[in-house]
């Protein structure tokens, strides 16, 4: 799995950080999401899928490798 953020779409809700704190964080200045780990290990995939699904801006794309 490869995690891609469509950054201009991000609305800084931070829902991804709640769902998968190991993979996402937010910038201090504007809250825009940051991908900490673009290729998370399998044990984190469920949380990442949850994050992509609940993102209110549909800004998280998951590419299968």
């Amino acid at each position, binding site marked *: 799995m490869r995690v891609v953020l469509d950054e201009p779409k991000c609305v800084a809700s*931070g829902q991804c*950080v709640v769902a998968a704190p190991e993979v996402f964080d937010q*910038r*201090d*200045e504007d*809250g825009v999401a940051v991908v900490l780990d673009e290729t998370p290990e399998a044990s984190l995939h469920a949380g990442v899928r949850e994050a992509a699904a*609940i993102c*209110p*801006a*549909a800004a998280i794309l998951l590419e299968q490798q």
Partner: protein
Amino acid sequence: MRPIVVVGASAAGLAAVETLRREGYDKAITLIGEERHIPYDRPPLSKQILAGEWEPERLTLRDPAHLGSLDVDLRLGVTATGVDLAGRRVHLAGGATVPYDGLIVATGVRPRRLPGQGAHVLRTLDDALALRDRLGPGRRLAVVGAGFLGAEAAAVARGLGAEVTLLEPAPVPLAHAVGEDVGRVLSQAHRDHGVDLRTGVAVAALGDGGVRLADGELVEADEVLVAVGCVPNTDWLEGSGLNVLDGVLCDEFSAAAPNVYAAGDVARWHNPLFGVPMRIEHRTNAAEQGMAAARNLLHPEARKPFAPVPYFWSDQYDLRIQAYGYLRGHDEVAVVDGDLGERRFLVAYRTGDRVVGALAVGMPPKALRPWRQAVAAGARWDETVVSAHRAAT
């Protein structure tokens, strides 16, 4: 073999369908949507779309290839007109019926309208494009209703150079939603940006060159936007046996009847985290509840209560407003960080003895996150807010 039928092809319906597939459901799914567009995102309608910053394609929630991979019988431009719970069938306009094994209702809401002709509403992509085409420098826009939608539209219209009058029946906009103090701060932002905000006014009629107020005055405008809230799309469920007094009434699992669930703006469910029934018209709830409804429908032996901390955001001018929790009907608001006058603050909301919500403007995201945790944990007000004050001083 009957399919699972999802009625409503917006955020909640799409989330439900994706969850069914993600959870391994490999039988037939039918997704019925009244609009002709493939599922798209609504929050940008009153922001980037109205401002002309984004083209409509940018709203698409999932690209066509991904939608195709879901292997769903997608029926767009199709209106559901009724449901037969005993026969497990959805009736469609034109007379066709679709049998179902399980049903998820995600038909959303529609704008409340006012008597009179020619006014805009802002709910669909077509609504937003129609209004966008009519705004520009020197155009006069009257917005009826200074809730979040009306406020966002007013802000965007000012950015486009339009002259904006914002009409609000309440003395303080958004007071019922976020409290009077925060409502006043947000009101001042409109005035600072040149909006003619008029509170405590009653609208009598629309049309004839603007908005006629109850006292007889005519607020002249080239365009009128009515943003006075929404009503759930439950007409098609009248007489079905479902309780649709204000949304589809659901239990804590988002179930409305055996094998029938509701999700998103249309669902009124009992949120056990707050102990009250609620109907939430926010984007994140649509996705979360769509997922929860799908899981509970699919795993009846392992259903989980749907107990989220609601979240919403709003962009107005350079202000980003973010809130967690259930603020409605709160007993007290306290500033726990920052300063209201500087429009950089974090306030907490109390209902009974609990922290039920927090709202931030212009604060770093990490400041708000612990408050979400406090709401999720049902934290006591006296302990949480007192310790926050101690940390701040």
